[in-house]
């Protein structure tokens, strides 16, 4: 089996991880590093994808500033979304050609990872044709937003494990005004840890992408970037 790297960052603000993604994406495109999977939780943040409309941001700016919630316009596909503690985020920076994946197969694979995590918790999640992401009968649980250049990906998926859904009221998520958003913990009616979901997700990723994952630390990644003349301010 081929291998890739897994970087677990814990809870992080958005900006430094976005910067890290862009640096690693550049190096992966230049074939200077292997595939790498970043997993983390974000501090509360709103991001607007390339399809977001001005009216998708509902909350008054002052309210967001007061709550310390930043808003970023980013290069991924899709509309507005909310990230916060209790949500597992995966950013795979992988070469789709080496995986022999089309963009559609990649979307399917990310959905499959989330469906398998659901199954590991005993929750049945499913796809809805024409609506990328994963769903439960009670609402949307898993979200996608991807950026591809030279067949190398960045951004990725977000799975609501035990997320307080109030942040979604600040936006029109995915451009769908009546979208119900729900977490695994609400479906199960019990506490679910993001760390456990992360363990399941890394195993599922390894299977679905046929890649053995080798752990790498943030410090190692920093050293690695500096060898390529790049800096990363981690927080």
């Amino acid at each position, binding site marked *: 089996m081929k291998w890739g790297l897994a970087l677990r960052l814990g809870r992080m603000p958005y900006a430094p991880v976005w910067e890290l993604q862009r640096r690693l994406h550049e190096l992966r495109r230049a074939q200077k590093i292997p595939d790498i999977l970043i997993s983390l939780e974000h501090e509360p943040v709103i991001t607007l*994808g390339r*399809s977001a409309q001005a009216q998708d941001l509902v909350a008054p700016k002052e309210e967001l500033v007061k709550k310390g919630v930043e808003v970023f316009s980013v290069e991924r*596909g899709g509309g507005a979304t909310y990230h916060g503690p209790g949500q597992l985020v995966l950013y795979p920076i992988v070469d789709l050609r080496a995986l022999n994946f089309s*963009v559609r197969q990649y979307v399917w694979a990310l959905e499959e990872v989330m469906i398998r995590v659901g199954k590991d918790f005993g929750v049945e999640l499913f796809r809805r044709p024409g609506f*990328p992401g994963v769903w439960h009968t009670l609402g949307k649980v898993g979200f996608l937003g991807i950026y591809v*250049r*030279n067949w190398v990906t960045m951004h990725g998926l977000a799975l609501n494990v035990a997320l307080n859904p109030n942040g979604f009221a600040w936006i029109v998520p995915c451009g769908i005004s009546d979208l119900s958003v729900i977490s695994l913990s609400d479906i199960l009616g019990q506490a679910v840890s993001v760390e456990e979901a992360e363990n399941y997700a890394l195993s599922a990723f390894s299977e679905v992408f046929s890649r053995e994952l080798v752990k790498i630390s943030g410090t190692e990644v920093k050293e690695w970037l500096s060898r390529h003349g790049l800096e990363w301010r981690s927080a």
Partner: protein
Amino acid sequence: MELVVPDLGEVDTVTVVRWLKGEGEAVEAGEAVVEVEADKAVFVIEAPAAGILRNAKPAGTQVRPGEVLAQIQSP
């Protein structure tokens, strides 16, 4: 030379979301020129050769793989 929507694999249509270069602007070979989106994935299309960008299909247009997005006029 033509700037063509590549085959993304089982994707019927993509939407032009953003031109990174403007009409009449010079582009280098391999430079990112336009972003298209399908299935929540943004895909960057690069210039196949250096030249001047002409007749770019406006953002919001739906295009199919193989379809011409713009002309790259030799400089």
